């Protein structure tokens, strides 16, 4: 039986694809070795359906804001690149006219316009960043936190384009040399992935409040927005609050008392 070179190459190529594909398929479809019953939650963990925050600007001064920012960036090994191009920040200060563009007026006092606000990821209930992520590397947890999976992020930065609040940062280069003192109990990131505030999910898991909330001396009220009896709901019911760019429909979970 003679076979032409072309036929031979065709058969060889098809066999290779079937062989490799078959092996991968078996690998993927094999049952796993671990049972779901092997997992538990820490009994001390804080449980909520939709975590949120009220930032009472009346109670925040510049020194406390700096403490909140430093605490967050320190325990999460956030690098300090020292230039606005590569900058990575999870929580920072922004003036009123820049944090709430369109809300300022020409007759507003300079003091109000330049009043410093603490801004961070708004942990939206309808997050556009989650909608656009092609790998679900950023996703919404059942407790409302918009989470980052650094292992899965491919660094496409679609989420950064989608976020209306500029809350996300990208590691344009290796961050390790720029982390002042490493917190050994939390990983750093590597170059090529996006990061942002994740509402201290690792602290919530062991019963602690987020670091910025702890440092804020009561200016940051943290709680479960879905629980009508929570302190945060009482505050929201009594006081007038504003949210950043709420007209865009992303439903932010961070409220401000001015």
């Amino acid at each position: 039986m003679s076979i032409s070179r072309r036929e031979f190459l065709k058969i060889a190529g098809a066999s290779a694809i079937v062989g490799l594909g078959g092996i991968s398929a078996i690998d993927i479809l094999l049952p796993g070795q671990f049972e779901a019953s092997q997992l538990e939650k820490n009994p001390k963990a804080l449980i909520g359906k939709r975590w949120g925050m009220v930032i009472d600007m009346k109670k925040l001064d510049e020194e406390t804001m700096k403490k909140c920012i430093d605490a967050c960036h320190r325990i999460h090994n956030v690098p300090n690149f020292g230039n606005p191009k590569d900058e990575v920040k999870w929580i920072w200060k922004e003036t009123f006219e820049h944090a709430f563009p369109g809300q300022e007026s020409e007759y507003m006092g300079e003091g109000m316009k330049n009043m410093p606000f603490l801004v961070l990821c708004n942990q939206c209930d309808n997050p556009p960043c989650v909608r656009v992520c092609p790998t679900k590397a950023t996703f919404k947890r059942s407790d409302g936190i918009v989470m980052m999976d650094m292992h899965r992020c491919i660094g496409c930065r679609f989420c950064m384009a989608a976020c209306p609040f500029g809350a996300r940062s990208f590691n344009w280069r290796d961050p390790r040399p720029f982390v002042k003192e490493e917190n050994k109990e939390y990983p750093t990131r590597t170059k090529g992935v996006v990061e942002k505030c994740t509402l201290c999910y690792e602290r919530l898991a062991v019963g602690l409040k987020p670091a910025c909330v702890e440092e804020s001396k009561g200016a940051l009220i943290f709680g479960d927005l879905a629980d009508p009896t929570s302190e945060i709901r009482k505050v929201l019911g009594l006081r007038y609050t504003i949210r950043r760019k709420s007209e865009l429909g992303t439903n932010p979970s961070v409220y401000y008392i001015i």
Partner: protein
Amino acid sequence: MLELAIKGSRKYWGLIFFLLAIIGIGFIFYLKQFSYGLGITGMSRDVSWGFYIGQFTFLVGVAAAAVMVVLPYYLHNYKKFGRITVIAEFLAIPSVIMCMLFIFVDMGQPTRVLNVLLHPTPNSVMFFDMLVLSGYLFWNLLVGWTVLGAERKGGPPPAWIKPFIYIAIAWAPSIHIVTAFLYSGLPGRHFWLSAIMAARFLASAFSSGPSLIIILCFIVRRFTKFDPGKEAIQALGKIVTYAMIINVLFLGFEFFTAFYSTIPGHTHPFIYLYKGLDGHGKLVPIMWLSTILSLLALILLVIPQIRRNETALGIASLSVFFALWMDKGFGLVVGGFVPNPFERVFEYWPTKPEAFITLGVWGIGFLVLTILYKIATSVKEEAVFDKYGEKQVRT
């Protein structure tokens, strides 16, 4: 048929090695980027997409433009395009390859690229973009290769290719619409948040793509014996004319909505691009050059006596191509990020490594194009007569 690509004149091999050199330089710079990180480019926390994604956006349009030749021929039997359907499809293939390469070099973690396939996310437009781009590449390879192979054997293409041709025709607008959706569904970027973004993309695709096909037809006619045909080139010229008119009109519509409504979120990016904002205006000369070239091209194209002159048509096509390359490959992407969500201006400009990597990817595209066109023109030179019995080679 691939063996046709290894037999060529000195000029052909000179071109191949020149392109390989450009690719090599780009590759070395890419290694630098791979080890240092994307910070080697001009992108920043505020302008997080730049030249690479801009080139991808522009090239998706060029790739889709093959449909402007294939649709009239297969759906409406426009015989004059019979000789150049393969030419158009063989432009779509390197264009899509370049699109995928630009996405690849733009990724922060390129080794994890398979995550997009391993964790499919139907709500993400980028997931669909990957699907439609891969599909389009496959259809064009299949259709172009089969049709050319049939021409080489001297007979009609096999009947089973017809449904794939129709699929490819319907698929072509989709790659462009999906790419436009990457931009037009983002709530925080008012420069992009426009319903006609997808329509603008189609109009600019059908101007820039066919104008490149016209230029390539002139080059092919000059350097090979294959003659694409005067009428085909003129028909393409008419397509570019109408598409460019619509494209410029659409841009005008965007200007109207922004400046008549005076909403700052809409006007500020335009002011940044065309006048400068807060003292920053790096892109102003580029946007105006793009505008001037567009208007020059329109004047040359709209007047039939001028359009019929092939030199003028060539100049007009080059103008269209470069004007849209600047507008879509640079202005569109940067404009969405400036000013940033805090209404601050942080500018962007590509760096040297970024430029060389970009050149390297274009080099790969042109290499694939050269090889494919060598094969196609060799087959057609040998066939001498096209399927309508007309001579398609110059003596």
